[in-house]
């Protein structure tokens, strides 16, 4: 069975380490914050200028001047810092973020990522995503394996305008966890109940399948 959004978030959360500064994109990545293991400290960076993002506010705490990069009202944890957008992206571009998790429309075997526009149809804008993919050593892309009309989003070559070139090494979809090495997707884990054959069929880019592909675990 394809993973739920929550399962995807839980799987990504396994990549966290104690003391990591982490930037979580909008959508599924945001959910990762709900699955930080007990006893582990992780500090969330929000690129509008907040390091140490906390939970959503209570009605009493609600403050229009306190939002995250998704424009959601949030709180700050004790020990948080707040700064300008230039400082925020100095941090990001300078490689100080330990892990970045973000969504995408497409990823290809060269580690290219497309996530900000569909020509003629949709232009969200890149926001901070181009800086995030350029600045981070350690990125996980989370997305569904296929588009709504069934097209693979793991491609030999991205068809949409790129967000970043050659910067993605790890992809978690609702079907599999894959690493991009030397021009191919390497299948590392499959979602529980999903067959290697299904993944192979739905992966348009070159796929390397090892002899044994374990089922994903979530803890």
């Amino acid at each position, binding site marked *: 069975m394809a993973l739920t959004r929550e399962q995807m978030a839980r799987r990504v959360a396994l990549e966290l380490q104690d003391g990591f500064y982490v930037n979580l994109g909008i959508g599924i990545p945001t959910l990762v914050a709900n699955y930080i293991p007990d006893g582990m400290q992780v500090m969330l960076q*929000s*690129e*509008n*200028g*907040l390091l140490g993002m906390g*939970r*959503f*506010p*209570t*009605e009493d705490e*609600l*403050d*229009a*001047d*306190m*939002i*995250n990069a*998704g*424009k*959601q*009202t*949030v709180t*700050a944890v004790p020990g948080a810092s*707040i*700064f*300008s*957008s*230039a400082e*925020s*992206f100095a941090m*990001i*571009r300078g490689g100080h973020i330990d892990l970045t998790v973000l969504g995408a429309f497409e990823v290809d075997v060269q580690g*290219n990522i497309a996530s900000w526009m569909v020509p*003629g149809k*949709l*232009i*969200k*804008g*890149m*926001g*901070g*995503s*181009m*800086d995030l993919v*350029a*600045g981070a050593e350690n990125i996980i892309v989370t997305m569904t394996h296929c588009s709504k009309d069934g097209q693979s989003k793991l491609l030999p070559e991205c068809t949409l*305008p*790129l*967000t*970043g*070139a*050659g910067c993605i090494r790890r992809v978690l979809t609702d079907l599999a966890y894959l690493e991009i090495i030397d021009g191919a997707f390497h299948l590392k884990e499959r979602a529980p109940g999903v067959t290697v054959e299904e993944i192979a069929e739905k992966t348009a880019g070159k796929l390397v399948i090892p002899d044994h592909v374990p089922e994903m675990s979530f803890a």
Partner: protein
Amino acid sequence: MAGFDKRVASLEEALDGLEDGMTVIAGGFGLCGIPENLIQAIRDRGTRDLTVVSNNCGVDGFGLGVLLEDRQIRKIIASYVGENAMFERQMLDGELEVELTPQGTLAEKMRAGGAGIPAFYTATGYGTPIAEGKETRVIDGRDYVLEHAIRGDFAIVKGWKADWYGNVIYRHTAQNFNPLAATAGRITVVEVEEIVAPGELPPSQIHTPGIYVDRLLCGTFEKRIEQRTLSA
């Protein structure tokens, strides 16, 4: 106005000299920390053919969105269109010229404009459409794009507290692009929630030193929330 007293009496005076075709840099991220009253005053003024530099362009009917509604903007330099339907439609229809710029590059371009750095290299956007037509260079084995500074004829900025010398402190994440915009305007106008006497703000805690601020005024703010998310 004498010496360093930057206070002006009205929004009209704050925008004196703003003309059709000028470039306006605006602070704010989403609807957070936007110079609401100055935006409304630009609308009331009816200034047209503006180039607006801002991370995004408000929403339909609020923030910079009201200038889109009135077709006062010719060109936008921004990182995010998002859910702003009018922005997206005017852009796709070709009515509005849009220079999409990565958020960090946009912030750095404003800072560079204020800091006398005419251009800088960044890895951001290399190999993507935003690098098309731009100079690239390999430095220490990595590819970078050359990006140029941005300056504006006006910068419009939203602060929290200021003294009348124009030293500004921002509140929480309403800081965002505001201190950068403030450095990059030939005329920088700041609206705040409270103006205090010089000496009341701790010198080491000033976010925008008064040297960047030309005009200052106090306003009231609606502070509309885009995504009202609450804990269960």
